[in-house]
């Protein structure tokens, strides 16, 4: 295989297969992103040109304006920010509390930790219907508060398991020393363990944020005209009767930039994030 050929220091042949495969895959990944960007700044007159307009001569921002204001993208953006940030903070906080207890005190044994894990694999369709009914009767349907709570719960398994793995690989001697010195358990946790675990907490928070920011299903079914988030605004472009290609693309750009930026910044922790801490990247 190409990889093995390249391992040999003597024979520095150019691994053609490897470059080709990687090249094709890079194009495959990048082309849709380029096409969204291209569409978002393309004047409507260029939409149906043959051959397609690969880069508009007169780029325009009208689609951004329309997407943010006419289609209420800005309201969605504000809701997305408030909901995602609040849920992330709650999830990281509650997740860290629980993970610490699981890692240091073995609370509930294996059962409790696996029960939390099992929540991660529960199909959302199974709980969203009753949650919808409960939300309507309690009066938090279509409120940011309702969505924040839902997002906190749905990101908790990942937060708990990422922090569980983090605390387990952290030496506990510092906390033990603090306890010997007369600290309460809370002080040993809050003043000693949490600062040491800060990088892990930040990483867990980043993944919780991305999960909230990109979530669609709960937002679609638990919100309507008030608390709707950015991804649900795309409903307006389904069917394309009015051919709002530019607006859809502009909204996509607005929505994907923050999560991509955060994700790439946190890529060191990506493997742990994707496997809930099961694999140390």
């Amino acid at each position, binding site marked *: 295989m190409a990889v093995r050929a390249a391992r040999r220091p003597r024979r520095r042949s150019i691994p053609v297969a490897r470059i080709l495969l990687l090249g094709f895959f890079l194009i495959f990944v990048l082309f849709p992103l380029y096409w969204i960007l291209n569409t978002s700044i393309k004047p409507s007159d260029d939409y149906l040109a043959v051959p397609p307009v690969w880069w508009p001569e007169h780029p325009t921002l009208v689609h951004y304006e329309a997407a943010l204001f006419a289609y209420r993208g800005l309201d969605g953006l504000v809701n997305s920010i408030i909901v995602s940030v609040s849920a992330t903070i709650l999830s990281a906080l509650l997740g860290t509390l629980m993970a610490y207890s699981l890692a240091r005190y073995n*609370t509930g044994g294996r059962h409790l930790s696996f029960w939390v894990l099992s929540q991660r694999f529960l199909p959302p369709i199974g709980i969203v219907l009753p949650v919808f009914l409960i939300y309507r009767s309690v009066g938090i349907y279509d409120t940011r508060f309702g969505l924040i709570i839902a997002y906190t719960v749905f990101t908790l398994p990942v937060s708990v398991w990422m922090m569980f793995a983090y605390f387990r690989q952290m030496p506990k001697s510092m906390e033990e020393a603090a306890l010997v010195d007369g600290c309460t358990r809370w002080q040993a946790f809050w003043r000693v363990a949490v600062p040491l675990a800060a990088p892990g907490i930040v990483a867990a928070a980043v993944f919780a944020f991305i999960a909230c920011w*990109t979530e669609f299903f709960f937002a679609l079914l638990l919100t309507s005209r008030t608390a709707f988030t950015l991804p649900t605004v795309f409903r307006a472009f389904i069917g394309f009767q009015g051919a709002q290609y530019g607006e859809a693309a502009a909204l996509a750009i607005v929505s994907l930039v923050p999560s991509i930026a955060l994700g790439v910044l946190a*890529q060191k922790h990506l493997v742990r994030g994707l496997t809930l801490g099961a694999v140390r990247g």
Partner: protein
Amino acid sequence: MSNFSLRQMTSAGAPLPLSGVAQWTERHFKWILVGPAVLLIVALSIYPLAFSLVVSFINYDFQIPGHAFVGLKNFERVIFDPVARWSLVLTAGLSGVSVAVEFMLGLAVALTMVRSFPGRGLIMSILIVPLFISPVIVGQAWTLLLQRPFGPTNYVLSQLLGYEVTIGWLTESPWLYISLIIADVWQWTPFMFVILLAGLTSIPPNLYEAAELDGVNAWQAFWAITLPHLAPMMLLAITFRLLDAIRMFDTIFIMTGGGPGTQTYTASYYLYTIGFTQFHLSQATAGSWLFLIVTALVVTLLVRRLLRAEVN
């Protein structure tokens, strides 16, 4: 794992100088820490599940008044609905094919990225980008690329193949299935790639050096060293991905809307339509329970194997 506790110290006769509340906190500390998270999960996941079990045995339908107990009728309605059965078949087919393609492509790309080379860091950063994009946007992006007559796909294919290509990517079978799979593969191949790459880089390089000295060729080394060492990681990646793939909803919502007709109804999409556009809530919750049971079977099967592989 040893228990983290300093009970020895307190029992040794040096009681901490604490107030009653603080002592209570100290004693129940571990339960106080897990309390909030557990309560939230119970309130928003366990209670709704129990509630939906009740709903699935009564009549809870915005089109039929009253909440009479109807036994297994809601379950029967789902089981004897041909659309439901089709959606289950489609869910299995789409997720199976998607995950298989993602796995093979992800493994191939991971193999090209094991060794360090100039620009590897940058390429790595680019390849993981799809993981941070909302599936809705992924669906939207592929709609823009494939939709006739706007998307450039048919034009590019016409140029490459030398004849006019006029495929209705989002309206004609089997192309619409292929489109949905492409969108899924685009978003989730990086998932496989990242995990498998982590597995590949953790294989000790001296194994390969020893094999090379023994005159083993690259292909044999792949089967004898890479595959067995990577197996647990492969199982983990496939399990995680499969469990998410069977929920497939967002891209379908955007790209095909379940159509034409009910051709692209996955299990999640079917239940969504029953519950939220036709308001047969009881039938939908009954169907959700059936789907949960099917999922649980898959989970136990796969996760059991996963745990066993990890132990070995």
